[in-house]
């Protein structure tokens, strides 16, 4: 593209530095000591991998950092990246009881980072592969968080696991799709070394269906875990969309992860279409590359956006403008270059559908457009690989939530291709559950999910079993808002 870098490389690199600084040892101990050590704590219930949060925090307080890391990584093999990328404000930290004591919640994410950094910086291995393998081979398609979560758990159960990845590098969105100020690709790759250390084989650059057939895989492997995530970014379907300055959000972020930062094109005036968390990442990354003005276009209102409130606040803090209740009609170009986007106001009609307000069109000037309107489902590809695999209406694979089982007995799944798009931590948890599902399929024994000490586990229903009955972050966010408004009324 014809863009020239807006900022020198040093400035961009500085801009992309960690948003949340690591805790220093003394800070970590002081913070850990604030934890009440709840029993069957809500933070565990809110963690889709069911990490024994109070358990690891108390270990930090007692300066047993290695034990803390072991607690985390036993529950969540990607605990180090989840410590950086989890929306903790609406998961574990959102559930912290200290909110109700009118105090700041425990900084669980940063404490988790402290413990996992401690062992990785010192090259201390806290997980060990079993001494003997059971000789059973399992295939995993996709080396993203779900695939890695499943592979690591299976390896620890004694299986020989091979992961097939179509990209050059493993990690999926962890390597290619996270805002740089949260996590770098290098960090993601280093973390994957932990998975490899358990004996997991990862083959990159393999296109399943082309380089390797499902029939071959079914011969070589006892079961297949499908974790192919979602497809390319959705199209807007408007004129001018194929101009070079109109880019897909994930492509934009992927370039930041695989090319020198000062070679990644960005406009001075950027319009981001869509209002999810990827849209926010596009906003904040554009600004860090030097964009002077960034606007977000969303066809509905603030209450409907799928971005978390704290991500929205982050974008606002960075200076983004939000244009709610409007949608794009066409990309305006001048001399073959994007010069603006034609927008129209929207309203909800009597039937409850969105419609354009005639005559309200205007042109928002811009020189770059980022599309962040969700990713394509993988239905055609999956149908090609597994013609009889049952799919649900949302474009995900029909999945048993506890075991990851699909309509095909030897095929299991988890992550975005199954849940239609959730957090990294959900993917890891689903991969882990599917590993036990596969173990059950192979051994014909009831799965025994690892339970950690300060939990009631599945015996008490939703309580404590964040792994088995994960709470959706948005569900928790809504529950918290309801509670806060009830408190507000009570205070009046």
């Amino acid at each position, binding site marked *: 593209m014809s863009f020239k870098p807006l900022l020198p490389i040093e400035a961009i690199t500085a801009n992309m530095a960690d948003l949340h600084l690591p805790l220093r040892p003394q800070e970590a101990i002081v913070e850990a000591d604030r934890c009440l050590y709840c029993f069957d704590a809500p933070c565990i219930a809110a963690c889709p991998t069911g990490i024994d949060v109070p358990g690891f925090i108390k270990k930090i307080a007692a300066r047993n950092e290695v034990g803390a890391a072991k607690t985390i990584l036993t529950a969540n093999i990607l605990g180090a990246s989840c410590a950086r990328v989890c929306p903790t404000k609406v998961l574990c930290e959102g559930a912290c009881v200290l909110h109700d*004591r009118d105090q700041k919640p425990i900084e669980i994410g940063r404490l988790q980072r402290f413990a996992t950094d401690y062992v990785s910086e010192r090259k201390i291995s806290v997980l060990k592969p079993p001494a003997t393998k059971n000789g059973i081979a399992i295939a995993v398609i996709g080396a993203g968080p779900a695939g890695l979560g499943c592979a690591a758990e299976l390896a620890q159960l004694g299986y020989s696991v091979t992961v097939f990845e179509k990209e050059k590098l493993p990690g999926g969105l962890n390597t290619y799709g996270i805002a740089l100020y949260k996590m770098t690709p290098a960090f993601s790759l280093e973390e994957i070394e932990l998975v490899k250390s358990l004996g997991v084989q990862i083959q990159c650059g393999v296109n399943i269906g082309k380089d390797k057939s499902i029939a071959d895989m079914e011969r070589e492997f006892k079961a297949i875990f499908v974790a192919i995530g979602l497809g390319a970014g959705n199209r807007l379907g408007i004129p001018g969309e194929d101009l070079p300055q109109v880019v897909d959000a994930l492509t934009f972020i992927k370039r930041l992860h695989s090319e020198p930062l000062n070679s990644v094109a960005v406009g001075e005036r950027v319009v981001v279409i869509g209002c999810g968390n990827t849209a926010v990442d596009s906003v904040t990354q554009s600004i860090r590359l030097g964009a002077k003005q960034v606007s977000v276009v969303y066809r509905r209102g603030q209450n409907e956006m799928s971005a978390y409130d704290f991500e929205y606040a982050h974008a606002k803090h960075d200076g983004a403008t939000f244009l709610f209740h409007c949608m794009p009609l066409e990309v305006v170009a001048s001399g073959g270059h994007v010069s603006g986007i034609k927008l129209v106001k929207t309203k909800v009609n009597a039937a409850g559908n969105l419609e354009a307000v005639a005559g309200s069109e205007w042109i928002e000037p811009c020189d770059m457009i980022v599309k962040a309107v969700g990713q394509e489902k993988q239905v055609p590809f999956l149908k090609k690989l597994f013609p009889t695999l049952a799919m649900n209406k949302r474009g995900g694979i029909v999945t048993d939530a506890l075991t990851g089982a699909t309509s095909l007995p030897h095929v299991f799944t988890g992550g975005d291709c199954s849940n239609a798009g959730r957090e990294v931590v959900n993917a890891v948890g689903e991969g882990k559950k599917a590993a036990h599902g596969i173990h059950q399929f192979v051994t014909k024994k009831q799965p025994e999910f690892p339970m950690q000490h300060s939990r009631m586990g599945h015996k008490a229903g939703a309580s404590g079993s964040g792994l088995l009955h994960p709470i959706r972050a948005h569900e928790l966010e809504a529950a918290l808002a309801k509670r806060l408004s009830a408190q507000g009324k009570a205070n009046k």
Partner: protein
Amino acid sequence: MADLSSNFAGIKSPNPFWVASGPPSNTAYQTHRAFEAGWGGLVWKTIGTPIVNVASRYSALNFGNQRMIGFNNIELISDRAPETNFLEIAEVKKRWPNHAVIASLMVETREEWREFVKRAADCGADGIELNYGCPHGMCERGMGSAVGQQPEVAERITSWVMETATSPVIVKLTPNITDITAAARAAKRAGANAISLINTINSITNVNLDTFVPEPTVAGLSSHGGYCGPAVKPIALNMVQCCAADPKVALPISGIGGVANWRDAAEFIALGATNVQVCTAIMHYGFRIVQDMNEGLSTYLDSKGMQSLEELVGKSVRNVNEWKDLDLNFQRVARIEYDKCIGCNLCYIACEDGAHQCIDLVAPESIGVDLGPGRVPHKVLPKIREDDCVGCNLCSLVCPVHNCITMVEIKNDKPRMSWSELQDRVARGEMKPIPPHP
């Protein structure tokens, strides 16, 4: 405003807050600072036999984010010449005639005691405190707690002092003894005017797990130190009450041990102390802490309609009895206020693993609570089975929310019945004895 002025065994001070004998009361300079800050009296750091101190001298017990919940020291008595100390006491008394300055003494022979008692009187000290308590260093030379631990020795030395003393004599007691009242009675028999307690407790606060030498470390060795600070308050309160309740002691008590604010002081006074002495809290935060003590105690007395301190002295002494006098038929259960519950379940796990298994975790819907505490939808919450609750208090103690779990009396129609009454009635044939455990 209630009158805080204090008269302890004839020693008058503007308030009952004295700086205890120790590092904060080492010099005239510190004493001026203490009195300027609002302390009513001060017990000078113990004057006596020449000594040499070591480095290091102190160590501490931290708990969570709280530093120095307990503190210990192996520092000896004043390392300054007695002449200097007596001279400075005289100087302080000149400037602060209405404040109490007590000379703490520790020497060995009868002649030395007589001489030091006289010198203390000559410098104008308002009283004398006999240090029979230090559990480190001096006791190895037959002083300090070596005296306090043998009531007959303490009695003998005290009687030597009483031969010469012209001002009130306070005997400071060591807690490193099985029965504190034995030492207190000895002081009484010898004619002492008052007792002060407690001195520090034998202790090792921690072990350095790299060097395997406990702190405080002196060239690769440690020693048993005297323990004090907030963590010793319950031990001190117990001993103060024991002495206050003993008719054979009947001496004014100066309460010492973990006093850090007006509440601590009020508790000591309610359990029979006439005044209190403070050291560790000053070593932690400085003399300024006395402002809260003066204001807080005065406001408290006002709120209770008490005109003076004397009305508070000993108010709780008779509320502590022997176990055998407690009512076996009294019933109390725990109640949770769900509006305050934050869902930490600490009450549940404490009761389940550490007490009597009387709390269940139930779905919030089942007891009509909408979004359960802990902010996670459908998260279970604790429910007390009142029929099984033994009223032990544990859940209310571990609950991190003030007044969320309260202990409620359950009225029943059984008459008051203590263990001793029960035994009496059994002996009289009015009741059957309790059957043996099956």
